[in-house]
């Protein structure tokens, strides 16, 4: 409206603008085509096919499986190793998520404090494990935690904290906790960046005002930083949970699911039945994969809900 008023030929321009508004379907289809084809082949089809496969008894070699309805789900329900993989996934979440969540918050508070020197150097160092390949970390960590010559055991024994070396990744009682700690180490840098971005989004005027009102730094933290971080914290929590469900690369290279399936998380269960068994069970693995996907649907809904409530608050 405004620029039309300025233009002597406003009316003519309006007409042209209407022309521009006409939707060029040919171009739209051309621009969307690559994404449409690839999305249909590699996201949409596999998501739906997983559900369809899960209704069949199929070994992957024969041309077609036998339709067995919900048979695979019924079998999963009675499969101790499936429950075991679900339990391991949940235990992993329980060990790893709070640890990464709180630890990265602590470091972020330190790195945003005025008292901390060399901020960007420290952040870079803590971030390095994030960019390194999970499968490589897994392999190297099996050496570092090796009971014979691995440096962790050597150091702990030298310090007198251990009498005898421990096979951290091969012992049924320590393998999952150790893997969780390695995962926390690898991904803390990501959460750290989340937290720093959240802390820096708090307007500094708030702190100024509180300072003028005579609030000390603990009061400022308790009444400004903490409450304003809660909505961000919820998003970070959901992102961390969804990350902790996807540990295939690390777990396969660290423990391969062992010892005695004690670290076999859901992804490894799916992989074992679909790809590493001598007779693959595609339908059965797909049923597990479908349940795995459903957990993510729940996480997505939770995330949408959290983001919505955060926006409403602002």
């Amino acid at each position, binding site marked *: 409206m405004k*620029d039309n008023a300025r233009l002597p030929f406003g009316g003519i321009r309006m007409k042209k603008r209407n022309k*521009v508004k006409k*939707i*060029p379907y040919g*171009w*739209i289809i051309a*621009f*969307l085509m*690559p*994404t449409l084809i*690839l*999305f249909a*082949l*590699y*996201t949409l089809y*596999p*998501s739906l*096919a997983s559900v369809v496969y899960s209704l069949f008894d199929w070994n992957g070699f024969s041309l077609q499986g036998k339709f067995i309805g919900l048979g695979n789900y019924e079998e999963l329900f009675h499969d101790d190793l499936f429950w075991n993989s679900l339990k391991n996934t949940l235990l992993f979440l329980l060990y790893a998520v709070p640890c990464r969540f709180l630890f990265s918050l602590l470091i972020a508070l330190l790195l945003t*404090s005025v*008292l*901390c*020197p*060399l901020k960007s150097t*420290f*952040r870079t*160092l803590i971030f*390095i*494990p994030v*960019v*390194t*390949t999970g*499968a*490589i970390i897994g392999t190297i*960590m099996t050496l*570092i935690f090796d009971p*014979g*010559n*691995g440096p962790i055991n*050597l150091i702990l024994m030298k310090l007198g904290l251990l009498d005898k070396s421990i096979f951290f990744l091969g012992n049924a009682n320590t393998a999952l906790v150790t893997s969780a700690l390695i995962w926390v180490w690898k991904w803390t840098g*990501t959460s750290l*960046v*989340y937290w720093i*971005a*959240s802390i820096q989004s708090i307007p500094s005027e708030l702190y100024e005002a509180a300072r003028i009102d005579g609030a000390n730094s603990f009061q400022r933290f308790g009444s400004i930083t903490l409450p304003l971080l809660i909505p961000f914290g919820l*998003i970070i929590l959901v992102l961390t949970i*969804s990350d902790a469900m*996807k540990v*295939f*690369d690390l777990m396969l*290279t660290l423990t391969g699911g062992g010892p005695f399936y004690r670290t076999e998380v*859901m*992804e490894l269960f*799916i*992989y074992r039945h*679909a790809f590493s068994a001598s007779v693959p069970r*595609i339908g059965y693995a797909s049923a597990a*994969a479908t349940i795995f*996907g459903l957990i*993510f649907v729940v996480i*997505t809904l939770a995330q949408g809900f959290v983001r919505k409530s955060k926006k409403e608050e602002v």
Partner: protein
Amino acid sequence: MNRKSIAKICIGVCFGAFCLIWIYPFLWMFSASFKSTMELFTSGLRLIPKSFSFDSYERAWIKGGFSVYFMNSVVVTISTILIVVIRCALAGYVLAMYDFKGKKILMALFLATFMIPSGTTIIPTVELSDKLGLLNSRIGLILAMAGGGNIVSIFLYKAFFEKTPKSLSEAATIDGAGFFTVFSKIMLPMTGPVTATTIIMTFMGSWNNFMLPLVFTFGTPQYRTLPVGMMAFQSVNETDWSGMTAAGTLTLIPVLVVFIILQKYFVNSIAGAIKE
């Protein structure tokens, strides 16, 4: 010296020590890669090797096949990035600029599927690729990596184009520029920050990807990428620690170099998950 600067020094020293412990695994790996197997197993804790030997690098690079794995990783990663950037920029552009029929359905489909993990889609992806004759090939792997997911990048481009002032494209249209010219000459050159984010996310996703390259190269070891090659190397040379650490160092260095150069963008692209 006042109290503040003393506190600063104390915090700096403590944090510095903590960071050294934090990156100790990398220091150990780097040091072990120069040691002989003999030295590694007798003086495991010394970080500076008695004598530097590059034998392990030769073993990993030539005999272990890491020169091949390295090239595969480079080819796969670059191709994946190219496809993702092009297809997501194109899709994001029309989704941002026009309200066409079917747009709502498409957006709903994107939203419904963008969190679906590869653990769920991997089996049908492999079956489909097998049927299309794309399993055990590099192209098949690239298409699977660049084709699946990456919906977040479409959203990022869409959000970016929505924010660009409409007057820009309108002015160009009045000057007689066609649809494609407006996109390629005016809109696309402005997408620097989004493209940087997309490149980095895709780079991390494909260079570090493990599940897809693993199942795509069961029958074709010559197409293995670095992470898959590492696992294969370990299973064959279980006691060759210096070989493994050399291979690990070789895999890490390119990523570290890219990370240190583009650090700002890495941090921004990750922080974006919170800000959006």
